[in-house]
């Protein structure tokens, strides 16, 4: 909300008091017209939810180019060129032509987020407000992006206002940290000392939870799962094929927590959707309790569907904007006809409490929640029914450490009590290390490593550029 | 095309009076587009209106005097037994394409018209006494017409039978394709006739241009070849309102029959720029008819049960007394109609029986009549019949005819005062005709008849009990009632009576019978209302069809008047 207010984008119903000053100019009183010149050109913003912030009907490249054209006099070609360059800067260089032409829904969460960042920096504004810019990025890319931020900051003097829950990010990038509680800026330490960040990094442990350890029997078996996307373009005839899954073999044991990690765009979310039967696999088998569900269609699929629940990476998009929070969390109950209306209401309050949302927000609609709150709503919804397998797709990235660890604790309790199986997709290796009993590493549509967390994670680092996460990096750059 | 000088030996008809100026064009807005140029099959008004200007007939009924006069036939004689006519044709005259006209064309025309394959709507007219008229060629300019029985005023039959050019149509006829000849897409050169105008150009949907026939066989008193005007342009105006608006805007020069509503509005809105004429009542008569058809085997028990009333003369007389004809004339026709009690409109001056009683409206009289017929009333005023059944029925009307629907609305209110529950159901014309003529699935209807000729012969099919328009009881083999038998006899007799005074006496009696027996409850005869631009010369509209253009060959536009617009 603070970020929105800065940009003057609050809905008219919201009352805004106080003043916002930018380069000596008062922004609160300005009209839309004046603000336009400020927005984008001098003030850039990276929104928290990439799925909502990108226009679903415009191609990624075009959306970036539009920003260029809004602020600089240049023709279409030049703008597109600039967009391309910006995309390369944020690490989308590998698949540039495809991603440039892709519509937002065809991109992975991380790819989308980088498009957003590219949008924000393409015009080299003086100040960039970045709301959780790196939440769904893997370590490498995150390092790249943060590196970029630093470079921009150093060379062009661009200021960044980073909003994040990740202490790493703050530690490596920020020059000043501000902590907010309950709508107020709490304390403003001039320089983020390594100690504060360190404390943050280490202190929150998962409270009272025990990692689920598998029972040994495989609940879900995946064999040779393949999924290829084709990006067809109606009018240009250009065609890109993406092999998102190239033959995934994997077993998930009942009662275990499988961590799944891998570079952005390597196919994790796709795998999750396929497993849950929400997307048809091109080839391969998905066996749940020994039944091959890839062969099933329609009604026969229903009982298995319920057993596997996905909490989508873009929680915001996965919540119907017309529903209230209460309706959202009990939706599965309604769908499956569980309980009376009163029961459900009761359960809704329970679920909200479980994810630490105040029960007086039951009547609010998704757009009135913060990013992290929405994520928690999605988790609560998935918990409403008792699925055998829960797949968390980057569900914890928007949460602050404390909340996150409390929720993880709750989950682990549940796991222990009911023998639930979790699949946790995340880039946060620390999280996986704590939460998962086993970790699988994906690369280019295949599972390449699998094993005990620490081992795999270590090898994962080793397989990449091991230097990027060096904790010794000095915090450089200034924030407003 | 300039009128050709009159050649020696060309027996042109020289009009006795009237003169005019050559040149200019006349713009006429038709209600709809014509469908064909073929005189043999044209059944719709717009086609006939156009074709009438392009063709000529042997003997013509003068629309203004309502008498027959020589046309393509210079003269004719009738044999003493009245069964044979000898017609002398004009010599030296030509079709509009310059080809000469002679007896062969006449013989061809009648043969073609009488051929079943042609399906000419005039065919039935040419069947006299059950047999087609026989037309034979005597010499190149004489034809003999033989009838199976004497036929009063047989010469009137020849009116509007367009003489076809044998040289152009013989081929199509031989192929049995005369009915498909001369569609709208025909080129101007392939059509010829003996009318004052010939086809110049037709643009689909837009307009039809006729140009002067340079060979036309009439001349004015000064021996100048007619017609005066260079061209007639027919526009197609979709609806009557559009017709009126185009006339008012000056885009069309003639208004051929306006409704009373529009005529009144036009008169109010700018009469100075137009010449509007109320010609008095025309031949059309509107009436309410009750379904008295034999319904056995039709599966219409409800209507059959109501026929008890419809067949009851007392009931019909009560209805007739209760109907407010004066209001119909005043409200529906804005006073431009006459109330009617008999089957001949006062517009038909020669044949109307002026002594037919015209009882004024009287609801109490009507109630008294009903009472004597055994009807009674419920306390709430509803009328019950002898068996205690509520008197309720529907009146069907043509929805495209606003006036008749309005009449029905008035009649309904009138009959409500008698305790009858009447519903008005407007129907699309085809559905209406289907019910009235085919299925007999109706109680009562408001219809109109009599647009054609003034002569009673044109109404044979209505009054003969075997007639195809004997609407109240169709398809009878033998007359159902004594009075219908009497009418049959009278009509048959007048047909063969050659003395016109005697015919009038016979037809007067028919009118009396009809007015007594009330197979139809006559309502009103509307006036013929026309208009023209004020500088149109020789404009002599008539109450007979075609009301304004019947003397198109003599119409002209005053040269000084042209500056006024």
């Amino acid at each position, binding site marked *: 909300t603070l970020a929105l207010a800065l940009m003057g984008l609050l809905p008219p119903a919201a009352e805004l008091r106080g003043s916002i000053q930018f380069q000596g100019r008062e922004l609160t009183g300005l009209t839309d017209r004046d603000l336009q010149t400020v927005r984008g050109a001098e003030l850039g913003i990276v929104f928290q939810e990439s799925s909502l912030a990108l226009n679903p009907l415009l191609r990624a490249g075009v959306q970036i180019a539009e920003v260029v054209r809004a602020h600089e006099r240049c023709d279409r070609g030049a703008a597109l060129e600039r967009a391309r360059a910006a995309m390369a800067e944020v690490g989308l260089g590998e698949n540039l032509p495809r991603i440039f032409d892709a519509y937002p*829904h065809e991109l992975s969460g991380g790819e989308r987020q980088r498009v957003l960042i590219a949008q924000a920096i393409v015009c080299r504004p003086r100040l960039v407000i970045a709301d959780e810019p790196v939440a769904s990025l893997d370590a490498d890319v995150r390092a790249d992006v943060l590196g970029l931020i630093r470079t921009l900051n150093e060379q062009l003097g661009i200021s960044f206002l980073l909003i994040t829950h990740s202490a790493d990010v703050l530690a490596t990038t920020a020059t000043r940290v501000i902590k907010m509680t309950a709508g107020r800026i709490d304390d403003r330490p001039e320089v983020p000392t390594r100690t504060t960040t360190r404390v943050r990094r280490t202190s929150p442990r998962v409270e009272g939870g025990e990692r689920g350890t598998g029972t040994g029997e495989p609940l879900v078996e995946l064999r040779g799962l393949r999924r290829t996307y084709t990006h067809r373009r109606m009018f240009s005839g250009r065609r890109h094929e993406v092999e998102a899954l190239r033959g995934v073999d994997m077993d998930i044991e009942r009662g275990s927590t499988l961590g799944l990690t891998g570079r952005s765009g390597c196919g994790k979310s796709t795998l999750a*959707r396929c497993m849950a039967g*929400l997307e048809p696999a091109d080839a391969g088998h998905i066996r749940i309790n020994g039944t091959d569900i890839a062969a099933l269609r329609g009604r026969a699929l*229903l*009982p298995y*569907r*319920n057993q596997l*629940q996905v909490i*989508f990476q*873009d929680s915001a*998009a*996965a*919540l*119907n*904007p*017309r529903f209230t929070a209460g309706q959202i969390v009990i*939706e*599965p109950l*309604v*769908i*499956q006809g569980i309980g009376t209306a009163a029961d459900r209401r009761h359960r809704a309050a329970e679920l909200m409490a479980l994810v630490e949302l105040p029960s007086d927000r039951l009547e609010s609609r998704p757009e009135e929640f913060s990013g992290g709150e929405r994520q928690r709503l*999605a988790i609560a*919804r998935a918990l409403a*029914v008792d699925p055998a397998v829960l797949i968390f797709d980057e569900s914890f990235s928007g949460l602050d450490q404390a909340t996150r660890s409390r929720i993880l604790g709750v989950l682990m309790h549940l796991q222990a009590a009911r023998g639930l199986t979790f699949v946790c997709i995340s880039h946060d290796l620390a999280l996986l290390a704590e939460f998962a009993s086993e970790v699988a590493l994906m690369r280019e549509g295949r599972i390449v490593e699998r094993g005990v967390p620490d081992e795999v994670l270590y090898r994962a680092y080793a397989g990449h550029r091991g230097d990027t996460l060096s904790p010794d990096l000095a915090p450089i750059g200034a924030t407003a | 095309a300039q009128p050709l000088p009159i050649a020696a030996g060309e027996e042109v008809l020289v009009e006795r009076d009237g003169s005019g100026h050559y040149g200019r064009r006349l713009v006429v807005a038709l209600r709809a587009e014509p469908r064909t140029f073929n005189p043999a099959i044209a059944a719709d008004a717009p086609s006939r209106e156009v074709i009438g200007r392009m063709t000529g007939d042997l003997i013509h009924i003068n629309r203004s005097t309502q008498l027959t006069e020589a046309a393509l036939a210079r003269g004719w004689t009738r044999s003493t037994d009245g069964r044979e006519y000898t017609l002398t044709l004009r010599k030296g005259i030509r079709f509009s394409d310059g080809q000469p006209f002679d007896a062969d064309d006449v013989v061809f025309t009648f043969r073609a018209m009488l051929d079943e394959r042609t399906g000419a709507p005039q065919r039935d007219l040419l069947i006299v006494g059950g047999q087609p008229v026989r037309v034979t060629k005597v010499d190149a300019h004489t034809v003999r017409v033989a009838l199976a029985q004497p036929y009063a005023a047989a010469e009137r039959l020849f009116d509007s039978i367009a003489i076809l050019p044998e040289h152009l149509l013989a081929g199509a006829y031989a192929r049995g394709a005369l009915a498909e000849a001369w569609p709208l897409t025909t080129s101007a050169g392939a059509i010829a006739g003996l009318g004052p105008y010939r086809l110049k150009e037709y643009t689909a949907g837009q307009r039809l241009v006729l140009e002067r026939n340079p060979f036309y066989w009439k001349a004015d008193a000064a021996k100048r070849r007619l017609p005066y005007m260079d061209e007639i342009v027919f526009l197609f105006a979709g609806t*009557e*309102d559009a017709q*009126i*608006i185009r006339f008012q805007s000056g885009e069309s020069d003639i208004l051929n029959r306006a*409704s009373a*509503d*529009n005529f009144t*509005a036009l008169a*109010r*809105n700018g009469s100075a720029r137009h010449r509007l004429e109320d010609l008095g009542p025309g031949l059309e008569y509107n009436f309410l008819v009750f379904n008295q058809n034999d319904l056995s085997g039709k599966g219409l028990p409800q209507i059959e049960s109501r026929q008890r009333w419809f067949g009851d003369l007392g009931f019909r007389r009560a209805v007739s007394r209760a109907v*407010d004809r004066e*209001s119909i004339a*005043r*409200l529906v026709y*804005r006073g431009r109609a006459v109330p009617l009690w008999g089957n001949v409109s006062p517009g038909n001056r020669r044949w109307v029986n002026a002594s037919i009683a015209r009882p004024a409206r009287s609801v109490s009289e009507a109630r008294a009549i009903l009472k004597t017929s055994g009807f009674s009333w419920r306390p709430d005023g509803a009328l019950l019949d002898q068996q205690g059944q509520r008197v*309720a029925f529907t009146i*069907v009307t043509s*929805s495209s005819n*606003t006036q008749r*629907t*309005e009449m*029905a*609305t*008035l009649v*309904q*209110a009138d009959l409500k005062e008698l305790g009858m529950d009447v*519903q*008005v*159901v*407007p129907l*699309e014309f*085809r*559905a209406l005709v*289907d019910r009235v003529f085919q299925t007999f699935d*109706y*109680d009562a209807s408001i219809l109109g008849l009599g647009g054609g000729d003034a002569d009673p012969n044109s109404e044979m099919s209505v009054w003969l009990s075997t007639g195809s328009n004997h609407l109240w009881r169709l398809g009878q083999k033998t007359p159902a009632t004594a009075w219908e038998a009497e009418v049959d006899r009278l009509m048959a007799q007048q047909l063969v009576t050659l003395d016109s005074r005697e015919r009038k006496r016979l037809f007067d009696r028919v009118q009396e019978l009809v007015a007594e027996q009330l197979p139809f409850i006559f309502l009103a005869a509307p006036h013929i209302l026309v208009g023209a631009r004020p500088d149109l010369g020789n404009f002599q509209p008539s109450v007979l069809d075609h009301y304004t253009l019947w003397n198109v060959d003599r119409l002209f536009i005053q040269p000084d008047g042209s500056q006024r617009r």
Partner: protein
Amino acid sequence: MTRGRARALVVVLAALHLLVLLAGFVAPYDPVDQARALPFAPPVRLHVIDADGRFHPRPFVYALVPDPATADGYMEDRSRRFPVQMMVRGARYSVLPGLESNLHLVGVETPGRLFLLGTDGFGRDLLSRLLHGGRVSVGAGLLATLSALLIGMVLGTVAGFSGGRIDGGVMWAANLFMAVPWLYLLFAARAALPLHIDTRATFLLLVTVLGVVGWARPARLIRGVVLSARERTYVLAARGFGANPLYLLRRHLLPHTFGVALTQAGLLVPQYILAEVTLSFLGLGVGEPTPSWGTMLGSLQQYDVLTSYWWMFAPAVALVVTAVTYHAVTSAVHGRIRLVTT
């Protein structure tokens, strides 16, 4: 939409419907009563000052007599005043089925006439016809719109949602319904039905015919919206919970189509009120002498009426008011339910 405006809207809407519902009481005359001496009489003039210049606190009217100076004009007969009275006894009407009354809100003594909006060509009071006609017209217009939209929404969403064969089938039907010459169905219906149809049956007939014929257009529009909406992540999520198609349609997709459906509703209501003219033309409408806005507007569409009698525009004005109100209502409702959708 401000509060005041919303309130004004509700008031107007309520007043409109109340007037129409209480037509019998508010209308001074029986809508089918013909004052045959006064066809096309202009709206009566209310006076407070009489011919002698005296002031009367109670408004009064003069009787109309034909004006000899014009062909069909009228003038006031100043010899006698007819004060306007409240709560007078007059023509009987039924308040509810079985309950009759003859009390009217306003009226004058005969031979005075209180033709507040003038008369039609039969001398029938236009105001009374307008009020009574509104019952059928507004009622049938609304119901027909509802039914057309309902069918359209259900079929449109089902088609858009299911895709494939069902979509093909529904769109085939929609094409059929849009391309077939309906006029003939009406002809056929007219031939099949009995000639005498009472008002209630006519009403149902109107609603059915319009609903059945009208669903295709909204269905197509809605199908398009659903096509796009069914790919949203939250639909996918609900599917993940094992939602059956019915649930998805009802909870996620139908609400999505409300915007389009509301807009269509605002368009269809006046359209269907007008469509009654066509049906009347074929003998399937309300029919004389029962008034309806459709037929009243039908008589306005004539050259002579249009150019001569301005007060005959009253039904058009009534319909405009209705259309504007309903538009305002739909747009207010739209504003309410509008949420982030894309």
